[in-house]
């Protein structure tokens, strides 16, 4: 599949949004969906629908096979050792909750420490916070450096004998920093520490190789990977998890699981290397044009950045930026992006965030830049 034509695969870009072409720069929030995924949902419901796993009739058997097929596709896509290491959840948030519950019941004792980072999303803080309340564990925060990066040293120095778990994002949904998970896992495992990775942003932007990363858990948000809403994946090493059906209680998001197979196929048909290259070019271009604009301050300057560019404009609040950009069809997000800890640290209440998907182009970033100029004009800035 040709990356230059990829936008055509996404029906939404045929629409006018308030008379504008849609410049969608909010994929870190949720990505748009390619037609193959929508068609699969529609086809499944209109030609093959049945609940999975419980009935013996033809449709039920077929649906169960399709459902398990997706499990195998995910296994292959993320290079997990075993199909049973893949659990479907309603989202990454539920996946991370499930990990915290599992570890809370198996290994965490009062006063044990869970090490997270200042970059974490709410969803990778709240479950540990609950364990703090119910099990009296401690939460420690590895600090970011001046570049908004999280070098491994900053993790290492927070590790104590009490550290049992490191729970960490693969890719910051604010700074776009890519964290050295493989090295962190090596360090952690050498000290018997379990590694939980919030892979929400890693999912769409990075090569996923569980056996290489060697982390114990990895949480994925399917709707950010060109898949349906209401679906997440928890990868967990076999030694931590019972069989998936233990966690997949009640009727599952059957149609969504079955359609997610098409998201994986879509990603595979382009190839993650191509996606990474494309998005790297975009990020570099984005950084370049925004840095030229001297009212704009990029948030963080990580060594390796992917998928996300957050910024502030001196004198214009991010909400005002978002509203003004929206008027020309440029959809970004403003707020703290569920990363209040990071924003507190940076001393800002909110930021504006442009985030990328496979369908974006330099043109989109030019429109972002024009929108920013418009903000400055309205707010009478130089």
């Amino acid at each position, binding site marked *: 599949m040709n990356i230059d034509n990829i936008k055509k695969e996404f029906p939404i870009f045929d629409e006018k949004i308030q008379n504008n072409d849609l410049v969608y720069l909010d994929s870190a929030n949720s990505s748009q969906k390619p037609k193959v995924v929508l068609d699969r949902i529609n086809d499944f419901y209109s030609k093959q629908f049945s609940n999975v796993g419980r009935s013996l009739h033809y449709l039920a058997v077929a649906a169960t096979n399709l459902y398990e097929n997706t499990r195998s596709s995910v296994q292959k896509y993320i290079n997990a050792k075993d199909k049973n290491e893949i659990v479907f959840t309603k989202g990454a948030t539920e996946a991370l909750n499930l990990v915290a519950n599992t570890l809370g019941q198996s290994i965490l004792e009062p006063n044990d420490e869970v090490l997270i980072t200042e970059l974490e999303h709410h969803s990778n803080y709240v479950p540990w916070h609950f364990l703090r309340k119910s099990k009296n564990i401690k939460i420690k925060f590895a600090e970011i450096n001046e570049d908004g990066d999280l070098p491994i040293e900053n993790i290492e120095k927070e590790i104590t004998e009490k550290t049992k778990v490191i729970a960490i994002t693969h890719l910051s949904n604010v700074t776009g920093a890519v964290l050295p998970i493989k090295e962190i896992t090596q360090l952690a495992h050498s000290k018997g520490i379990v590694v939980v990775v919030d892979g929400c942003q890693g999912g769409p932007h990075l090569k996923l190789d569980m056996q290489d990363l060697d982390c114990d858990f990895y949480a994925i948000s399917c709707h950010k990977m060109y898949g349906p809403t209401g679906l997440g994946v928890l990868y967990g090493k076999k030694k931590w998890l019972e069989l998936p059906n233990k966690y997949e209680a009640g009727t599952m998001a059957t149609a969504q699981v079955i359609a997610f197979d098409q998201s994986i196929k879509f990603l595979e048909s382009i190839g993650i290397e191509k996606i990474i290259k494309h998005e790297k070019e975009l990020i570099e271009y984005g950084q370049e044009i925004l840095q030229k604009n001297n009212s704009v301050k990029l948030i963080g300057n990580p060594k390796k950045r992917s998928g996300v560019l957050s910024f502030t404009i001196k*004198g*214009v*609040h*991010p*909400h*005002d930026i978002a*509203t*003004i950009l929206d*008027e020309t069809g440029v959809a970004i997000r*403003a*707020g*703290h992006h569920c990363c*209040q800890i990071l*924003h507190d640290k940076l001393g800002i*209440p*909110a930021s504006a965030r442009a985030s990328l998907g496979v369908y974006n182009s330099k043109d989109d970033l030019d429109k972002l830049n024009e929108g920013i100029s418009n903000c400055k004009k*309205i*707010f*009478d800035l130089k």
Partner: protein
Amino acid sequence: MNLKELYQEIILEHGKNPRNLGKTENFNKDAKGNNPLCGDNVHVYLKLNDQRKVEDISFEGSGCAISMASASIMTDLIKGKSDNEAKEIIEDFLGMIKENPELKNKILKEDDKTKLMCLSGVKQYPMRVKCATLSWHTLVSAMENDGKEVSTEN
């Protein structure tokens, strides 16, 4: 383009140089408000004297141009009013933001009304309505002094 209506000069000016920003001395009523979705927060302080008149009013907080301007204009107009007048103005303002085309109260002078009407641009921006109303809801809470933190999410 409705942006011009949203970001009228007076809004931009109040947003940039908000009046009554800070913590007034000797306040006897206050309340906090926040918008958990976008992280805006405001703290309204007021001094209601024995004659139930708003002797002083101020606010602390951070937020977008709309929310800062709204708090700034609000404090400006409420200062010196009796608590009943204040309540009428608040109700009138919230009603205007919600549905009424005009302000109806007979308390404010025409040019004060014009200032408030400038905030009506948010009507076309549903997600921004909360920016304009948060400080007003917080003022209500302060006057009732029920100590409840106001949240936009209900």
